[in-house]
């Protein structure tokens, strides 16, 4: 593909919320609360735990990577060939918490390693990149 896709892709959403980290942690880690704002899933705040988030459009496969109560939570996020990891960071402020979500997509070579020979995505993305390079 093009040059930018050779790098890791990251999405960051950050907000100040007027609540203490402990309260936000509950919303991030208790399945009946997660379901209310994110998706339905059998999440457990245990490193290595595999679970999925389900919605009417499909499912996201996840595995817990890191848990530090009231501070940080990280899990993989895989759906239809889009491999990524989502990390939540909670930082207390004077009036509440700065809540940061960072989603990082794997680099194409890592993605290729993950998908292995069974998928033609690398070839597809390469072809797509050529097409786009010409279109631009």
């Amino acid at each position, binding site marked *: 593909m093009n040059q930018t896709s050779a790098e890791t892709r990251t999405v960051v959403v950050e907000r100040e919320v007027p609540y203490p980290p402990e309260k936000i942690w509950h919303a991030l880690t208790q399945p009946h*609360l997660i379901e209310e704002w994110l998706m339905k899933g059998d999440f457990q705040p245990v490193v290595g735990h595999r679970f999925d988030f389900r919605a009417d459009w499909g499912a996201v496969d996840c595995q817990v990577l890191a848990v530090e109560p009231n501070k940080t939570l990280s899990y993989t996020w895989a759906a239809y060939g889009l491999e990524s990891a989502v990390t939540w960071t909670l930082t207390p402020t004077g009036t509440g918490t700065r809540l940061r979500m960072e989603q990082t997509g794997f680099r194409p070579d890592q993605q290729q390693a993950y998908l292995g020979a069974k998928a033609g995505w690398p070839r597809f993305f390469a072809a797509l990149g050529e097409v786009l390079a010409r279109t631009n």
Partner: protein
Amino acid sequence: MRHAHDTLFRTLADPTRRAIFERLCRDGEQTVGALTARAGVSQPAVSKHLGVLKQAGLVRDRHEGRQTHYSAQRGALAALIDWTSQMAGFWQSRFDRLEDLLKRMDQ
């Protein structure tokens, strides 16, 4: 937003279908006959693949006499390419819902 991704990925997951799409991107508009000659599968199979590609918005057809010409719609790939802005929009909306929930938890 996920729906658009799902449809595109499912549509392009098939190697024959992907090859047809790539050929249309590379060589421009073509008839079913011309595509069949190089696809390695039967004409009905090629037609079926084109139907799926059309449903996903990846190709457009144009009738001329008894021939149907197909061309690639590269714009349909925008949903895949613009992954980061799609996900950012997704997470912004989830943050909104999370804040609503936190507010309700107060009560």
